[in-house]
């Protein structure tokens, strides 16, 4: 297989079934033991428009989408016209025999003959793709049986026949496309995207309440908890707006339930007063902020990393917070789990900052080992402590800044959570000394958060000439771009931050200073993280490499600009 593996792109209008084909093919590839990176490029509409579902498949681990298309499945003419120049050398187009291949190396498929009705064309396309790529046939058959099983034996039988006919038809055309090499990955892996992994991480941490207002690309976090988490005892409430969503979550954690709030930039902007409330009330809450390009509605279904500053500074007044930025699907799980521990431990908002690319990107993921997870902090559910039927010191001044957090109803003492500056018991105060003592107490928790911050992942290259700095989902493409450059003889290292706040310069400043050139790669137009690094360390990167057209970083795009 080539260095980049095989890139299969399905293109068409929304509603034509490209996602169905993509999902089933991806699952078949993962079940067979291949590595995949799925990227979904869609327009903000339910019907029409031009969308693509890209599956990069490889027999070895991969971490980024590719650009050049080895197999383009064109569900309409527009797909051929738009993408014919993006075909790799030897790339083929699979299209209906009635469409014009426009001079490409094409496999025209008589879909109408292979499908008794148009509804079967997706399965026919799967049969052709499975055969051309050399996917294990029993695996694909099992998947078709599973997918249509609920609709009864007759429907299963019809689909199996279509699959069989399409497979046989394609066998006659095998010469036009080299089959995939044998897979090497383990069996039993999950087909999981970022938002699903976040939902699983939250469940593993004991999330009990999720309040949300639907917003792309964050909605599927809540959706996973609704369809799959409910059985595990989670209450999910669709709120009237994002303001209600975050305020509900604060009510939930006050009542002792771990709470999650998924949203995107515009929705999060509405939540900012609630973030400030969580700060002064010292209420735990995990906010999943799945970024998409702004300002305002921007490019609503595409990707960007431009809300770092928003997450950093959201909420009036000064209070601590932590911002975790997963780079991989595994990170989405583990960092969400960690976010619940941090927010419970320090009683202040914690963010999981992702983006549309990671939210929607499917990969092959080994099921998580739940027994290996560290414990998650809990509030004090004990019945003892505090005066009976009087307020205990909810905001007791302590050295760490963390006060005992009791839960109303679990004890005879009373819990008063308050939004003003307050006394240790939670009552309104205007006292200047107490104000300072309380503000200092809250900010001391920031030091505790800093002491636990996750160091950046740094590649093995000792003292590279070029050090690429990135955060969040850019890690995969940046790491592969570094490999491309190394192949060309360059000395390149990668430093990837999965926690972007707070930062501990001792963890990374020496490495930054040792590199000859430091380039910060970010999916925004102003180099927000590079500025944050300078603010916190005084270190200025040599330059930034920024993308803000709503499109995903690819290794090729990066390597071309780093030559």
């Amino acid at each position, binding site marked *: 297989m080539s260095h980049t593996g095989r890139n299969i792109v399905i293109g068409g209008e929304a509603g034509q079934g490209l996602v169905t084909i993509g999902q089933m093919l991806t699952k078949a590839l993962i079940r067979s033991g291949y590595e995949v990176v799925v990227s979904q490029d869609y327009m903000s509409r339910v019907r029409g428009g031009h969308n693509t579902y890209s599956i990069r498949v490889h027999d070895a681990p991969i971490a980024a989408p590719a650009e050049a298309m080895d197999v383009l499945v064109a569900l309409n003419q527009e797909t051929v016209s738009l993408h014919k120049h993006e075909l790799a050398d030897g790339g083929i187009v699979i299209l209906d025999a009635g469409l014009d291949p426009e001079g490409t190396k094409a496999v025209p498929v008589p879909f109408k003959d292979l499908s008794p009705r148009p509804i079967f064309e997706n399965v026919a396309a799967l049969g052709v793709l499975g055969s051309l790529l050399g996917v294990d046939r029993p695996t694909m058959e099992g998947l078709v049986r599973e997918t249509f099983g609920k609709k009864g034996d007759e429907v299963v039988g019809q689909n199996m026949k279509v699959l069989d006919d399409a497979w046989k038809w394609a066998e006659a055309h095998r010469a036009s496309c080299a089959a995939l090499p044998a897979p090497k990955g383990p069996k039993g892996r999950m087909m999981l995207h970022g938002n699903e992994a976040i939902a699983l991480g939250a469940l593993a941490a004991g999330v*009990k*309440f999720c*309040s949300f207002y639907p917003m792309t690309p964050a909605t599927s976090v809540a959706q996973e908890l609704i369809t799959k988490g409910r059985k595990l005892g989670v209450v999910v409430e669709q709120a009237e707006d994002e303001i209600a969503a975050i305020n509900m979550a604060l009510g*939930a954690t006050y009542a*002792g339930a771990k709470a999650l709030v998924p949203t995107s930039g515009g929705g999060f902007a509405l939540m900012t007063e609630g973030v400030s409330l969580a700060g002064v009330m010292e209420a735990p809450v995990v906010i999943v902020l799945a970024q998409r390009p702004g300002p305002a509605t921007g490019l609503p279904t595409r990707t960007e990393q431009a809300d770092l500053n928003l997450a950093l500074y959201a909420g009036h007044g000064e209070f601590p917070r932590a911002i975790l930025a997963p780079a991989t699907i595994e990170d989405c799980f583990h960092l969400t789990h960690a976010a619940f521990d941090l927010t419970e431990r320090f009683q202040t908002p914690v963010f999981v900052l992702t983006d549309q690319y990671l939210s929607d990107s499917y990969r092959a993921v080994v*099921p998580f080992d739940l027994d290996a997870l560290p414990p998650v902090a809990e509030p004090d559910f004990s019945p003892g402590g505090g005066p009976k039927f009087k*307020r205990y010191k909810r905001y007791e001044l302590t050295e760490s800044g963390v006060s005992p957090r009791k839960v109303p109803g679990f004890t005879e003492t009373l819990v008063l959570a308050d939004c003003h500056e307050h006394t240790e018991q*939670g009552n309104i105060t205007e006292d200047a000394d107490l104000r300072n003592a309380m503000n200092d107490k809250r900010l001391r928790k920031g030091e505790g958060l800093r002491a636990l911050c996750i160091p950046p992942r740094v590649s093995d290259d000792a003292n590279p000439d070029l050090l690429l700095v990135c955060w969040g989902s850019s890690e995969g493409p940046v790491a592969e771009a570094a490999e491309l450059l190394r192949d060309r003889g360059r000395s390149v290292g990668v430093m990837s931050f999965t926690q972007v706040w707070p930062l501990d310069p001792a963890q990374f400043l020496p490495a930054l200073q040792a590199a000859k050139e430091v380039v910060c790669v970010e999916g925004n137009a102003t180099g927000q993280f590079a500025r944050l690094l300078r603010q916190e360390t005084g270190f200025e990167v040599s330059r930034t490499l920024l993308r803000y057209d709503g499109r995903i970083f690819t290794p090729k795009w990066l390597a071309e600009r780093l030559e």
Partner: protein
Amino acid sequence: MDIEVYGEYKKTSWCPGCGNHDVMKAVRQALAGLDLAPNRVAHVSGIGQAAKAPHYIDLNGFNGLHGRGLPPAQAIKLCNPELTVIAQSGDGCNYGEGGNHFLAAIRRNVDMTLLVHDNQIYGLTKGQASPTTPEGQITKSQPDGVRNAPFNPVAVAVAMKCSFVARSFSGNTPHLVKMIQLAIQHKGFALVDLFSPCVSFNKVNTFGWYKQRCQELPEDHDPTDWAAAMQVAQEFGERIPVGVIYRNDRPPLDASLPVLQKGPLGRQPVDRDGLRALMQSYT
């Protein structure tokens, strides 16, 4: 329950003569009469003069943001159904800043009580029109008179078939105590719009003004008759009816969630076997 258990706070930031003093007295009496221990109640508020209530009574308290008392109040009930949840706040908080939450709470129908101190003015910010200030009333910020038509919370709530709708007046403590108790006992979202006159910033809707107008509903008013309730809800003039205007027995949201039958969510353990099985569904 001895009324002393809820504490008595002589020092408040409310003016002498403010209706809120009487409301707090009524709340204490209502809770004592229902034998509700202070730790079994979650008392939620937003911002405004009325919203300071959690600081002046010994109950579990959550003093949240302006307009945002209802979302946490509902979530508390959805996370711990064993708590009695009461929200208290003013007309600006609930009908202005939090208007969307008010509508949503009626629809959601979580078992809780909302006490709205309705003084038809903004007190904390010193005298601007509130959503319930009558059209034409001159205020500091509306020197030519209020141009907006007033919001009728009771009519809106009845129109939306809110589970329980009552109106009362701080100047009639026994009536107010009764309304609060009925609201708490009702299974579902219960609104009590209670007049609590502002002695400093509303010189029109005074204690005397309300006292003259508030008349208890006749005994033959049937609160389960929606059409009759709609008629009553629109009466707001020389006579203002007080009492239980409307109620129905729509089951509350919290009663329909199986997970809540197992008690408070906070202490329910992580179902690791269930989660393992869930992960298998992605393979």
